[in-house]
């Protein structure tokens, strides 16, 4: 059948538009979410676990700062805001993309074959084929801590700051996601990358939740320009908390932080498409 006849029905063109793809992905994600809601007890347990996991890092900061009061000039309120902002970015990333963590299994079991023959971007299919409930715990903790920290810390919420905040959360999500996506792309060749992704996840969590400069100039530089950790929360919260004077980057770059995540993610997506060519079916 010539492609012209397909497009002339209007159907072929509809399939290829990005908007249609996104609507389709949204429908699939909703179906996956509703599917998981059937397991009610599991939902509660997994959500609770997510809260405990993300909350335990905060407990450390709380216990330590109740004794020491400041960390390199940052008060408990400042650190709470930094921690909450990182978590908010993290949650913004994991809610749509949590299923990337199953890429190893999807590839090894040959399930990726079916994603290739359906008329929807394979990446969108990977991330919408199921839903992992523990991310709900991340979302609950992120919002609760953010509301708490935003009230405690001395943050200015002028319209321009609010726009910057929203963009920074999205940009931060993409700055974390870019590295995870690039690493997941390596699974097409290596077949197993979960431990490496777990390490990256932890590096973002551990380095991203503190004022980066306490780790020294070399690490500050590396985790700004080689791996975009500083752009997730440290730089944006420095701007919002008026700690920008202590930053290792120029104010213009600090205000442009959200854009960095977008650029990284575009590059990571190109890398994914390039690695996709290495896919070898496990045989069906």
């Amino acid at each position, binding site marked *: 059948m010539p492609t012209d006849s397909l497009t002339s029905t209007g159907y072929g063109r509809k399939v290829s538009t990005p908007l249609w793809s996104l609507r389709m992905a949204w429908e699939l994600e909703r179906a996956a979410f509703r599917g998981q809601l059937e397991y009610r007890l599991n939902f509660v347990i997994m959500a609770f676990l997510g809260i405990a996991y993300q909350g335990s890092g905060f407990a450390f900061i709380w216990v330590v700062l109740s004794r020491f009061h400041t*960390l390199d000039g940052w008060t408990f309120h400042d650190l709470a805001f930094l921690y909450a902002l990182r978590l908010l970015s993290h949650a913004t990333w994991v809610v749509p993309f949590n299923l990337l963590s199953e890429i190893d299994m999807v590839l090894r079991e040959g399930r990726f074959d079916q994603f290739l023959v359906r008329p929807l971007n394979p990446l969108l299919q990977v991330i919408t084929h199921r839903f992992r409930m523990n991310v709900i715990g991340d979302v609950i903790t992120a919002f609760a801590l953010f509301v708490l920290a935003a009230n405690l810390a001395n943050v200015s919420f002028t319209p321009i700051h609010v726009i910057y905040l929203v963009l920074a959360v999205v940009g931060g999500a993409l700055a974390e996601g870019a590295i995870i996506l690039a690493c997941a792309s390596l699974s097409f060749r290596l077949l*197993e990358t979960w431990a490496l992704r777990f*390490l990256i996840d932890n590096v973002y969590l551990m380095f991203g939740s503190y004022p980066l400069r*306490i*780790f020294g100039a070399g690490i500050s530089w590396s985790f700004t320009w080689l791996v975009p950790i500083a752009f997730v929360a440290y730089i944006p919260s420095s701007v919002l908390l008026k700690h920008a004077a202590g930053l290792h980057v120029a104010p213009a770059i600090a205000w442009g932080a959200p854009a960095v995540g977008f650029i990284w993610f575009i590059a990571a997506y190109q890398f994914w498409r390039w690695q996709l060519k290495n896919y070898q079916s496990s045989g069906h």
Partner: protein
Amino acid sequence: MTAISLPPGSSRALDRNFPAYIEIVRGRLKVAIAYRQNSLFLLAIVVVQIFILKKVWTALYAHQTSVSGVDRHALLVYLTIANIQGWVLQDPTVSRYMYERVRQGLVAFDLVRPSGFIQQMFAQLAGSTLSSMMFVLPALPIIYFAGTLGAPASWSAAGVYVASLACGYVITMMLMLIIGMIAFWTTEILGLTMLYRLVSQFFAGALVPLTFFPGALRVLAEALPFQSTVYVPVAIYVGRLHGLAMLQAIVVQIAWIAGLSLAAWAMWRRALFRVVVQGG
């Protein structure tokens, strides 16, 4: 079911089955080597954590050398050793292994083997500890630069540390066994093992020594068994715990061993009647 009715821990059964335990330990080592890439990444997380703790605590101390009677150098040594020790002793894969045996019904085969199930699990734990050590020892030079390593406070502190560490190891084994056995009732413990890791790491004092816990939290931490696994031995190592307080802490460790062993034994008696082999 006759195999299980062998008196647990009877010395004759232990002798006869000893080669079997060696094989289990060797199997664990082989798994660790086969998946060395994963083991290395997981070890890297511990090294990063040690580095972060060092930097965060150094920044917290600012330019003071001592806070609340805790010397900065001793604190950094404490944190480094506590985290290495925590990683070597607390391999969560064994609880997970138990859970998978129960869930897939494979536990039936474990139960009919001549060696007791509990003994098999102890061999698994010993194997996983050995394989963790296999990775930590070559990494010590890196850990030295990421964290702070130092000699024990004194010769006697070193001796008591080894004894206290042994007690801590037994407590860890018992706790893992109890967590794993819960699978006989619920057939699902993945969430529980993750929660256990978070709670035990925090209350064991691997991130903040118990000395710095605020009032009520400290009372809670001292009432839980986790402090006996990490805080007590490492605090003895750096000389934070000494004299009467040290002896007291070791008595508490021995009491926990007795209490947890009893609880594990009671659970095991009941667990056997709960075995449901799915599709078996």
